[in-house]
């Protein structure tokens, strides 16, 4: 009895601690919340100016995202890949790197997973799925190794190289699924993956897959890695001041390479999750820009894993609700992209947010 009680105490203590950390982390994203609020206001102005009713549009959006089980499943399905790409952007950013090419790494990882999914047969589920996921992470990471080495060895800025490599990935994967790995038929896509490589669907009939759990696990793992491990400490030190980190005995080159490769692996894993869980194959052009969403989401979430998770859910709401909004009110779905951009611009201007919050308090 005594032993049991002790364990019980430890668990509540742990839970309390976790909750406290969560609360502290949440407080940091207050400026982001303000930015989101202002973005929604500016978004209403855009809607008004183009002859739409913001109340109707946002109303349809909320109904679409939360109205029924299907809507909720769709919201989470839309949020899932963005969790991965957001973590990818965030991880590189902590080392001071701007990986704006998560889209490319996402696609490369997705195709790698699809190839493993279609080309191996007769494997048990428990081996085939991890193998395909691993292929996604590995090739996503490998694709990010290119800009990493270009940066550390030749000094080429990663903003330009990762962007260029995204275009290369779009065309290259497009070529591979219209030629070498093409399924019979008119569509540029691979054949269906073997059933043994499929990630389970967790909320039928929606497309929501177990990839969501993987995403949640990675949110926690990323937080833990960045805050509680030597690697995370080194990466953050490099991001804060590479010179000081070098003087402090940290191998900056190695740190940058590891950070960008992990970033690419996270994006690649997201791509793999989409292929194995949602589409069951690689379809040319299947990503509506998850890489870009990830970047926006990481910034909206205050460059914090938990914040990014919440921001990814918000984008999921906007995207899945946006489809209903489009159907019901005719508002183009691109309003969602506009809202994302506005949040980024407001988040980019920390002084503006501070100024607004201060003047807000004065008015109160």
């Amino acid at each position, binding site marked *: 009895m005594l032993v049991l009680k002790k364990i019980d105490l430890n668990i509540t203590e742990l839970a309390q601690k976790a909750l406290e950390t969560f609360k502290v982390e949440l407080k940091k994203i207050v400026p982001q919340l303000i930015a989101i609020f202002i973005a929604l206001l500016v978004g209403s102005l855009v809607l008004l100016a183009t002859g739409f009713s913001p109340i109707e549009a946002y109303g349809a959006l909320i109904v679409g995202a939360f109205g029924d089980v299907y809507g909720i499943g769709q919201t989470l399905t839309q949020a899932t890949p963005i969790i991965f790409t957001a973590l990818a952007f965030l991880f590189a950013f902590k080392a001071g790197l701007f990986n704006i090419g998560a889209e490319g790494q996402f696609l490369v990882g997705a195709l790698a997973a699809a190839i493993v999914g279609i080309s191996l047969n007769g494997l048990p589920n428990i081996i085939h799925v991890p193998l395909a996921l691993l292929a996604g992470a590995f090739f996503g990471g490998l694709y990010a190794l290119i800009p990493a080495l270009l940066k550390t060895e*030749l000094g080429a800025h990663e903003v*330009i190289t990762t962007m260029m490599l995204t275009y290369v990935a779009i065309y290259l994967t497009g070529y591979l699924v219209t030629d070498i790995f093409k399924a019979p038929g008119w569509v540029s896509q691979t054949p269906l993956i073997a059933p043994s490589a499929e990630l389970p669907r967790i909320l039928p009939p929606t497309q929501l897959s177990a990839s969501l759990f993987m995403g949640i696990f990675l949110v926690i793992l990323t937080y833990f890695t960045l805050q509680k491990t030597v690697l995370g400490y080194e990466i953050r030190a490099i991001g804060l001041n590479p010179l000081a980190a070098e003087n402090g005995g940290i191998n900056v080159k190695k740190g940058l390479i590891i950070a960008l490769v992990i970033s690419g692996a996270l994006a690649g894993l997201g791509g793999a999750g989409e292929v194995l869980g949602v589409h069951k194959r690689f379809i040319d052009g299947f990503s509506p820009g998850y890489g870009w969403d990830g970047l926006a989401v990481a910034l909206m979430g205050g460059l914090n894993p938990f914040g990014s998770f919440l921001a990814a859910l918000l984008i999921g709401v906007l995207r899945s609700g946006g489809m209903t909004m489009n159907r019901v009110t005719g508002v183009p779905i691109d309003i969602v992209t*506009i809202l994302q*951009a*506005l949040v980024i611009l407001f988040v980019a*201007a920390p002084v503006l947010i501070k100024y607004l919050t201060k003047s807000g308090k004065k008015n109160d």
Partner: protein
Amino acid sequence: MTEIFDLITVGLFASAIRMATPIAFAALGGIFSERAGIINIGLEGMMLTCAFSAVATTHFLGNPWLGVLFALLIGALLGLLHGLITIKFAGNQIVSGTGINILALGLTAFMSQVIWGSRGASDAVQGIDPISIPLIKDIPIIGGIIGVHSPLVYILIISVAISYIILFKTPFGLRIRAVGEHPAAADTAGVNVFKTKYYCLIISGMLAGFGGAFLSLGHLNLFAWGMTGGRGFIALAAMIFGGWKPLGAFGASLLFGFSDALQMRLQTLGVLPPQIILTIPYILTIIVLAGVIGRVTPPSNYKPYVRE
């Protein structure tokens, strides 16, 4: 092999100049911004928004030159926006530029649907007709390459010359470079650091405006979703390759324009899959960027300037 040599014609070089034009305009825009100490990743989005604005204005008013004018205005406003965020509110320059790029993608797709009911492409509008330069057009070969082009191509060549003169031969240019290299010293010497940076960003946005207007009105006479296709980023590579100098950046843009023109012609040959050929300009950009770095140092210190 002979087939490949057959591709090298006067037409190829003329096409290279056309393909180089939007890149060179944006690269000049990048130079003004970076010389004043501000990275402008947003050139891609500024060009895209301006390409859209040019077509939309022409659609409503019927005159493509009014379209160009409006594109310049929108470019100037976007430059100002980048300035407000990075100068007044001390925001991160790359985050702000990325925000502008995403805003451009969303806003142009949104408005395209509101105006034309189509997300992919606008209706065709009246474009800007090419002009021919008397005398030059009659010179053999050279006339074929530079004799007949959109007026915007000639505006580009004039802009390169003017940019060089402004940056390196006028007191204003000296102030720009001083503000970029050592803002505190420039401030002490009585230069208005913030004002100079704002001017440069407005010029930067307007140059991107020319580039965008050329893309939509000097080329296809319509607006298509994401039609800049990374040219704003390629322009940044051209700027670096050209050592942050107008003439150098123009030369580098010609190289990228040539690869783009060659890529289009290679596709007609069918020797390689089209998707592989399409990657050529992007891979060339990476190679050029990687090859040149180490030999060049940025002219500016990009930290936001805070007056003490």
